């Protein structure tokens, strides 16, 4: 639904985005990752039409991005806040009307969301009277109120306590089920793992990784298996077909981490082990997003 093609953005002496292309598919949750200053916010600001690229283009549902798409995009920036002296209800109403909703429609939807997120009594409160987590909830509501097709969340969970973070996460999943597409920018890899279908990493203004969560994990498997067993076996005998990466001996069971060399399979490994030990568990060690992220960034440096 969103095609980002060869975007270049330059600020005076500094290049924020260098020929970045991305495809965001309809109904997916897209994770946009990268260290601080990589260019994520610059890219998001181009999608939200806060700034324009120097070259390249963005297509929204096949159309060139233009002002009438603003009402179809919801954006929760990383640097976010509310008017301190304004009442909550009035404030959300104002933001919704800026997106083009009528007063009646906006009021109805705000009431629905306030009810849903247990904010019913907040309408006449001022921002000053709310905790940071409560403010975040208000901002989330303001972001999704106009039922945008594309919702961009920049570090949505910062400032939330675990309970509220979970509430918001569930709302994201529900909206996603109803068809909303998400772009999700964060440093918190565990939430990426939980939510994202597709991932791209931007580093030093270039895209360095792009693919579905599945693909990436497939790509970064390195044939490593964790085995729990009882009995005695000298894993050194496995060489050179298998590498022992780590071994641990306990009273109840022992465990070992083994990497398969090329052209070797788990079956072969089991064939060697079975006569000697009692295997209680065997897992493939799949690298976490966190590992992949750190690994990728390190490689680039």
């Amino acid at each position: 639904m969103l095609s980002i093609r060869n975007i270049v953005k330059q600020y005076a002496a500094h290049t924020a985005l260098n020929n970045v292309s991305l495809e965001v598919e309809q109904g997916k949750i897209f994770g946009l990752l990268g260290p601080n200053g990589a260019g994520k916010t610059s890219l998001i600001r181009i999608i939200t039409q806060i700034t324009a690229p120097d070259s390249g283009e963005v297509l929204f549902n096949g159309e060139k991005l233009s002002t009438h798409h603003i009402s179809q995009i919801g954006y929760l920036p990383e640097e976010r806040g509310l008017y301190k002296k304004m009442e909550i209800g009035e404030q959300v109403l104002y933001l919704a009307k800026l997106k083009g909703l009528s007063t009646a429609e906006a009021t109805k939807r705000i009431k629905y969301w306030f009810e849903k997120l247990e904010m019913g009594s907040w309408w006449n409160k001022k921002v000053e009277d709310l905790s940071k987590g409560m403010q975040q909830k208000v901002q989330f509501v303001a972001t999704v109120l106009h039922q945008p097709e594309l919702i961009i969340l920049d570090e949505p969970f910062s400032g939330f306590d675990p309970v509220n973070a979970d509430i918001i996460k569930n709302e994201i999943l529900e909206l996603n089920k109803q068809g909303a597409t998400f772009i999700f920018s964060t440093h918190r890899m565990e939430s990426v793992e939980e939510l994202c279908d597709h991932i791209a990493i931007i580093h030093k203004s270039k895209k360095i990784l792009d693919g579905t969560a599945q693909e990436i994990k497939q790509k970064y498997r390195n044939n490593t298996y964790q085995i729990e067993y009882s009995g005695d076996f000298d894993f050194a005998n496995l060489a050179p077909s298998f590498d022992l990466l780590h071994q641990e001996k306990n009273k109840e069971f022992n465990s070992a981490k083994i990497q398969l060399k090329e052209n070797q399979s788990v079956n072969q490994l089991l064939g060697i082990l079975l006569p000697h030990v009692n295997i209680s568990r065997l897992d493939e060690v799949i690298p976490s997003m966190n590992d992949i992220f750190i690994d990728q960034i390190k490689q680039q440096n």
Partner: protein
Amino acid sequence: MTFLLTKLNNKTKTMNKILLIIQREYLSRVKKKSFIVMTLVTPLLIAAVYGLIGYLSYEGMNSNTDTIAVVSENKHLTEQLLDTKKIKFNYVNGSFEQTKKDLAKADFDYILFLPDFELGNPKDIQLVGSKQPSLALNNKVEAAVEKLIRNEKLKKSGISNSELTKLETSINIDTKKITEKGTEEDSSAGASTIIGSISGILMFMFIMLYGIQVMRGVIEEKTNRIIEVIISSVKPFQLMMGKIFGIALVGLTQFLLWIVLTITISGAAVSLFSNGKGLKENMVKQQMSTLNNPEVQKDIKKMQENTFSKIEKSVANLNLTKISIVFVFFFLGGYLFYSALYAAIGSAVDNETETQQFMMPVMMPLMLGYVLSLSVVNSDPYGNIAFWLSIIPFTSPIAMMVRMPYGVPDWQLALSMVLLIVGFLGTVWMASRIYRVGILMYGKKVTFKEMFKWFSYKN
């Protein structure tokens, strides 16, 4: 056709958004307690200040009559000194030395000693008192004595008393100005100065007060971090313009309320006073009776009538409608011109303490316009400096208002207005280019050099 329709549709949407912003900026300020308090208290303060001025001048008029004991040893002076408005002459018998001794306990303030001099050579006249006589008093007494001696001399040369009275003239110059149409109009430098100065001061206040409000509003949105949420819905330019116009309406509302309330309060106060009219008349009568010289009475009456009717007449001739329209134009024009610059400053900083270095270049022309308008323009409203100050947009709102009551040729007025509009479009364009970059810069100390760079940024 459909393309045109969507374009039109987009235009109305844009307008609606600006209106929404204006509405929020306006309501959120007008609803504030500080706004309501300021709006109500200021007219009371103005009324109080006027009351105080009135009271003080009334007091001053009454208490400032000096009584002077006159000791005359002169045999050539046949007449006595006549009382004037502020001075009462009491001839006393007894020597100068004796009177000086009585000074402490007597009911006069000063002693005037007229020794026995020849009329052709008046000398050794003394004015003594327990207090140092003021220069003004000294001048008045000198004038009175000079007149006395002159009359004495005239009499000596054979002019009778009645002829002397006939010679007395009291004149008042009517200042008139020939208008472009060739007709004569009464004018009053006094009224022009007052009206011009007041409009100039109001203009300066309005630009300062509300320009800074625009700046504060921009900083507030930045520090609140709501700015990025808003500009994902509207263009920074729309937000800036909405804010500027919204606050302009706040300013107009406040000034309108001030004017209405001040007039109401002053009206109430005046009617309260005129209920005690008896008191006022009493006071006048009392004053009259102390000045029992018929000639002085006539003088005073004439003078009073003259000044009052004159100011009234010239105010009527000043074409207040035109001045008001021009005032509102320059009021808004000047505010818009400067508020755009204030918005740019607000966007470039993170908090108000950082604004100082940028405020200077904006404040300078404004202050300069203010100071020069009240001095140079007021003293020479048709001069070169006055002309240029009232043409250049940086100073024209203030300078033109000060010049207006003296009369400004229409072509100059038109030129100044056009330049102000051009200037306003220029500052808005400039400010919007800085603003759109500045509002997204957090936690960075910005320099002029950097601001200049933002200028050339593409969208």
